[in-house]
């Protein structure tokens, strides 16, 4: 949280706004066409990346923008997944309703987990999210044993309004649409007055409080909102994985999403996207290397899992030490250079 990246888009730049529209249109086109042109394997990778973005982006709003460092996100995913499973199985409801119910549960739990942030900060607040993670996952375990049995909740193939959407390609579209929706909501929040309130939360800005922004209310609001989004994503994730079981929702999973926003760039929506893609691609890349050269006597390539763990750790360390503003920082300096060259400087 050392790098405070300014989020407010420069208002008086109509050309930037125009460029934004072009970029958005381009993004929609790429998302729509992607599964038609790439192999199913890469569709799966893209689905995973989109899902990761839908979870990393709200986390980035909480941690990057509002400065609330949380390791609670895996717990919010399990809260969402199990709320979704419960309402789906008990009332036979459709996915969108299940996601809304999960979001409501996530908002409530997020509010509770956010309460310590009114009293604690820094390492102490982080410890409280760590404790919350284990307490929530334990509650989920008890819920799982009583409701779904030891193996966890098995999700049926996804159907919405009678249409079977469980194929790889249709799952991709469902998740991509959801991720885009999350992205839009967050982009709007960051551009609105709420964005300013979040920066005030981060800065613990006395002036902001004097200007009528209640820091406490803004804090609880952002905990609640981001947890709701993560919980909703949890339902989709469980559907995609086909099941939800507490063993999946580890502290390491929570850390993965924090790593994404760190690598991508704290406090930046584009950063969440880049980070989600990058961290999703690391195991893919290592597995490719290992498959290609691993064989027998392949040295460390014979340990793809361990190698992945090492590389993942090195990436995190390297970004903190060398590029604290993340991949988005690289992109920004590159575009700045292009603009400067064009302007003939």
């Amino acid at each position, binding site marked *: *949280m*050392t790098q405070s990246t300014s989020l407010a888009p420069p208002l008086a730049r109509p050309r930037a706004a125009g460029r934004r529209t072009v970029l958005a249109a381009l993004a929609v086109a790429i998302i729509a066409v992607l599964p038609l042109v790439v192999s199913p394997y890469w569709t799966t990778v893209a689905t995973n990346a989109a899902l990761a973005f839908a979870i990393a982006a709200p986390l980035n709003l909480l*941690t990057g923008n509002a400065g609330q*460092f949380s390791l609670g996100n895996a717990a919010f995913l399990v809260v969402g997944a199990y709320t979704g499973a419960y309402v789906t199985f008990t009332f036979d409801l459709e996915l969108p309703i299940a996601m809304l119910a999960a979001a409501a549960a996530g908002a409530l739990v997020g509010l509770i987990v956010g309460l*310590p*942030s*009114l*009293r*604690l*900060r*820094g*390492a*102490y607040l*982080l*410890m*409280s999210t*760590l*404790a*919350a993670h*284990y*307490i929530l996952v*334990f509650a989920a*375990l008890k819920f799982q044993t009583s409701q779904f049995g030891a193996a966890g909740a098995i999700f049926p193939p996804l159907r919405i309004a009678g249409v079977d959407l469980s194929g790889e390609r249709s799952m991709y579209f469902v998740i991509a649409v959801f991720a885009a929706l999350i992205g839009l909501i967050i982009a709007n929040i960051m551009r609105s007055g709420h964005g300013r309130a979040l920066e005030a939360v981060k800065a*613990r800005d006395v002036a902001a409080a004097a200007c009528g922004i209640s820091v406490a209310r803004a804090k609880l609001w952002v905990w609640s909102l981001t947890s709701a989004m993560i919980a909703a994503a949890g339902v989709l994730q469980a559907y995609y994985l086909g099941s939800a079981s507490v063993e999946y929702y580890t*502290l390491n999973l929570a*850390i993965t999403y*924090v*790593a994404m926003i*760190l690598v991508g760039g*704290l406090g930046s929506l584009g950063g969440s996207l880049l980070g989600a893609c990058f961290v999703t691609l690391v195991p893919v890349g290592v597995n490719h290397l290992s498959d290609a050269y691993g064989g027998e006597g392949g040295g*460390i390539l014979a*340990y793809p*899992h*361990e*190698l*992945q*763990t*090492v*590389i*993942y*750790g*090195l*990436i*995190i*360390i390297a970004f*903190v*030490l060398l590029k*604290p503003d993340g991949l988005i920082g690289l992109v920004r300096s590159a575009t700045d250079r292009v603009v400067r060259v064009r302007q003939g400087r």
Partner: protein
Amino acid sequence: MTDFLNALLSGAGFGALYGLVALGLVVIFKSTGILNFSGGALMAVGGVVAAGLGAQGFWIAAGIAVVAVAGVGAVANLTVMRPLLGRGLFPGVMVTIGLTSVIEGSSGILFGRQPRFLADPIGVPTFQLPFGTSMSSTLAVAFGLSAAATALLAVAFRRTSVGLQLRAAAVRPEVAAMFGANPGRIFTYAWAVAGGLAALAGALLASLTVADISIAAFALRAFAAMIVGGVDSLGGAFLGGILVGVTELLAGTYLGDDFRLPSTMVVLMVFLMVRPQGLFGTPEVVRP
């Protein structure tokens, strides 16, 4: 009654292990302000190294592991931790998380994946005690070593030059530097001590259960021990560890084994909400 007393005894033993790791966390947090998430990995790799040398017997194996992991801690400080001084919570936590990954992955590549075993530190496997109670000898040794390490460290902080400089750097880093404390050097000592203590806990745990990199997760309780005792108190880390260990074993005895870890996290949460400075910490600015 016997169950209760047994839970107390084992809880104190396990708690002493958490206390060892927490002691390292406190030494680092107090002097550098970095919240170290790699304590578990340092502990586990200590267990793995000790078990790899198991043929030498517990004490020699544990001694070598302590020295080796102290070296890992020192190197970690010299390479990746030193540039982070003064950069706040997030970078420190993330780098130590990255370090955890690097240590765990490297351990697998260097020492293989198979779990190993380590002999008991002393010949008798369990001590029979009055009222039908008993205690694992390794846990008893753990308790003794942890108490000794805490006392030794407390004296070192009081009497030695580096201890004095670390204490000064903890509260006024610029004043400490002004009077000759080289932060790169003294924090390397802090990291080496943290690594050594964690490795000792790892070796003991390896002799109790099994040496495998996955025992790193045990050390999560060290965070609870650290907060319960007070983040800047060495004796607090030890007693906090005992309290957390006893809570855990009591919860395990009376509620079921799956309540063990969650009960420690409840203790952690309760302390954060009611007494964030812990039992022996200095009340300072923890509020927003």
